């Protein structure tokens, strides 16, 4: 056996074919684009299927996807999209407007098909393909996201055969799609393999294969990058990112991220009908207290110490990466504990004998701060918050709990302060909608997506206006005013926007398109430009370094087995000699 292993031909890892090997740390939940909700699953869906429109690599504006032109009626209720000739499914069939109509229609009539992206078609009145090239969509009310429908369009001639969408796995390789890559092999939680689609309408990718290998921990993924087993890694922590500094053959990308971290303040949790719920500290209903809390937090120090400098200072819920909608306050609230103390004194929150403030109703200012046990960020930042608020005469009891417990307390309003955070989209509608009155839970405490319980007539009015506003400049102004209101009322303190930390083997791939350009990400884009536009380095066709490792490993293993065998044989002979005694 040892000899067989020793003599076995060593598998050639990279022959002439050039492969981009990407490490992912999140599993792909499903290959079925109607069911997949994880970010990794969505990204795989984008590689396989084009959307009706795409987001530009430079500034994320809507550009040609399957449709190259579109127009809307004067009342914004009817949209017409043109699907040009020449785009093909990977099995050679033409892509038509009927495929698009089929996809949206399926989501409208089959609840299971609406699992992942149903919100995009929830307001659709009808979808019709008047001919192979023309798609007409009528909506019940004007919908601002009509050029940002993140719905993978599937081939009607394949999917019309599917009887049960919930059961369909979509893993019959090669999977028929229209995107720049064709899925050829899938091993759940091991790896996914794609071949470049040489007939892709934008032009073929510059290399042959794309693989995603799954690593459970980002430590393992970073190690794999160092060893040359993979070419591209993201979602790194500051320490991991720093460890790759000045490493030969590795280039790092510090990109603006789409996430923000915040501390939610329980300013009066209530149901949709206004019934108070939970047990938040009553003093937090006072905007003076909330402002004082915000003013006492040194956001720059938190970014420097907790984020290792890899973050931007927070203002509103829309990160600077979406420059059009990112918010800069008219007057930035400076870090000023003395001013915050003075404000609290003035508002009647006197300090007791022990230095702890007491609210005018006579309640001691003791606040619970809830954080996620799964996130080191929460634990470290909580220490800053605790110390800052202690200077204000407010006691903070930090409780680090499981994600579920945090969700539970969040929905029930049984907290005072709580860590939270969201990922955002190019269109600000969803993230802004979270803080409208309608997002509070119903009478039995369910159905709410808000975490702030913010309910403000002015904010809601602005929200409704921006939703129906199709003039980009006017909408920008409305969105800015909403964030100003949010900033002034402080239902939450946005702490900062995490950078997305990525790195790649620049000895194998010379460059990757980033989105937005400059300053953007390679992975987790609104699109697949990073993978699609990757340019191999001149030497990329050569054999990869891991082959040496394999040879050494196999030889080492074989030697151990051989030595063991010899030893055993030796012992057996010795035994026989003894038996003769």
């Amino acid at each position, binding site marked *: 056996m040892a000899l067989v292993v020793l003599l076995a031909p060593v598998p050639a890892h990279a022959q002439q074919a050039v492969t981009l090997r990407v490490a992912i740390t999140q599993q792909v939940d499903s290959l079925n684009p109607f069911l997949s909700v994880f970010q990794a699953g969505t990204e795989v869906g984008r590689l396989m299927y084009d959307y009706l429109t795409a987001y530009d690599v430079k500034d994320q504006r809507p550009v040609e996807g399957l449709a190259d032109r579109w127009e809307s009626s004067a009342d914004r209720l009817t949209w017409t999209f043109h699907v040009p000739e020449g785009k093909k499914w990977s099995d050679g069939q033409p892509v038509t407007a009927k495929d698009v109509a089929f996809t949206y229609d399926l989501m409208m009539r089959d609840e299971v098909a609406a699992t992942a992206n149903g919100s995009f078609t929830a307001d659709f009145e009808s979808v019709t393909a008047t001919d192979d090239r023309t798609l007409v969509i009528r909506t019940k009310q004007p919908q601002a996201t009509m050029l940002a429908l993140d719905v993978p369009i599937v081939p009607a001639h394949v999917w019309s055969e599917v009887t049960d969408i919930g059961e369909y796995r979509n893993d019959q390789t090669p999977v028929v799609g229209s995107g720049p890559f064709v899925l050829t092999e899938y091993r759940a939680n091991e790896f996914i393999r794609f071949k470049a689609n040489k007939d892709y309408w934008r032009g073929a990718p510059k290399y042959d294969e794309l693989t995603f*290998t799954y690593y*459970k921990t980002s430590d393992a993924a970073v*190690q794999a990058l160092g060893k040359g087993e993979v070419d591209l890694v993201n979602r790194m922590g500051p320490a991991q990112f720093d460890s790759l500094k000045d490493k030969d053959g590795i280039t790092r990308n510090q990109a603006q991220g789409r996430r923000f971290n915040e501390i939610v303040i329980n300013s009066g949790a209530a149901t949709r009908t206004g019934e108070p719920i939970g047990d938040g500290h009553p003093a937090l209903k006072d905007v003076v207290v909330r402002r004082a809390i915000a003013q006492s937090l040194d956001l720059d120090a938190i970014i420097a110490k907790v984020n290792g400098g890899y973050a931007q200072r927070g203002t509103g819920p829309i990160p600077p990466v979406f420059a059009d909608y990112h918010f800069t306050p008219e007057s930035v609230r400076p870090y000023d504990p003395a001013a915050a103390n003075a404000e609290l004194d003035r508002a009647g929150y006197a300090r007791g004998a022990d230095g702890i403030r007491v609210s005018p109703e006579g309640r001691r200012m003791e606040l619970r701060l809830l954080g996620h046990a799964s996130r080191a960020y929460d634990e470290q930042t909580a220490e800053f918050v605790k110390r800052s608020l202690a200077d204000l005469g407010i006691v903070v009891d930090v409780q680090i709990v499981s994600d579920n417990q945090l969700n*539970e307390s969040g929905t029930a309003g049984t907290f005072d302060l709580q860590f939270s955070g969201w990922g955002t989209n190019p269109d600000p509608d969803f993230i802004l909608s979270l803080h409208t009155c309608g997002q509070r839970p119903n009478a039995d405490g369910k159905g709410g997506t808000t975490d702030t319980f913010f309910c403000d007539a002015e904010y809601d009015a602005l929200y409704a206006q921006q939703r129906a506003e199709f003039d980009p400049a006017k909408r920008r102004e409305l969105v800015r005013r909403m964030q100003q209101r949010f900033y002034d009322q402080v239902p939450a303190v946005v702490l900062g926007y995490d950078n997305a930390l990525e790195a790649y083997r620049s000895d194998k791939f010379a460059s990757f398109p980033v989105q937005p350009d400059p300053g953007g990400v390679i992975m987790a884009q609104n699109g697949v430009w990073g993978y699609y536009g990757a340019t191999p380095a001149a030497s990329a066709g050569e054999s990869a370094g891991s082959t040496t490792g394999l040879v050494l490993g196999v030889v080492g293993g074989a030697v151990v087995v051989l030595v063991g065998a010899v030893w055993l044989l030796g012992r057996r002979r010795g035994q026989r000699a003894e038996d003769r*005694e």
Partner: protein
Amino acid sequence: MAAGSAARAARGGPRVIRHLAGKVGGALVSLLFVVALGFLLFRVIPGDPVVAMTRGRPVTDDQLAELRARLGVDKPLTEQFVDYLAAAVRGDFGTSYVYSRPVLELIGERLWPTVLLTGTSTVLAVVIGLWLGIRGAWRRGSRSDRISTGLALAQWAMPTFWLGMLLSLATGDLFPSGGMRYPDTPPDFLSQAVDVAHHMVLPCLTMIAVVYAQYLLVMRSSLLEEMHADYLTTARAKGLRDDLVRRRHAVPNALLPTVTLVFLHLGLVVSGAITVETVFSWPGLGLLTYEALTGPDLPLLQGTFVVLAGAVITMNVFADLLYRVLDPRVRAA
């Protein structure tokens, strides 16, 4: 002679069967208890699974309600429990929330990587542990004994994930840092086998390093107990060589507790793989359990819980039966 053994068999037969039935019956009751506990335990976890699943996505109330109805979490708890029990008896553990696939199918897929990894490392750990244990006991107090026992204890005390990462760093480019195979390995059996073996080296070493200490210590102490027994003195007095006394007389008697331990341990080994599988992204049951926990994916969690507990129960029964076979004193009792 023939008549005598037949009579013994006749006397022993029903007793053996009764003993067997008792053990298996007890195991079945335990398993049923585990199935019920699996349900109750995971309902204590706070949080609405549907909200956890859809966090960060734009979903309407209708969609949430639809999702709840589809997963069956909108029914009263007692009804859910009855549904779950009825399905579990039929061998159906429901559909995973995250993967939208039958739980048993997911477990089945992940079973063999775990069996491969834990099987190989257990066999090696047992061989190494017993061998070092015997050596140590025979030359107790010697420098080699002290070193090997001390080393084993130190490794046992090390956090598994730390040891795993240390190994991975220390071996440099020699072995892959995670996974079970490279995506671009040719599909023929030999290449795949070599690739898997290559990927298995580090996780296997880590598991062995942590586990073998237990075998070493048990073997060492049970052999030490035998050392002063009279029959060994007799054997030595007969003029048998030391080596032979050890192998033929002392070791077989001292093996008993170790064999039991191996079987008990085999049941636990699947769950023990959780850390190693997580460090090395090994696509087995341990990693599946970890993912189900972080979800939390209730049906998957229940399924893996029952399978892991079932493995322990089954191995307990085996250990019991084996002990009976190996030790005549238990048979006679």
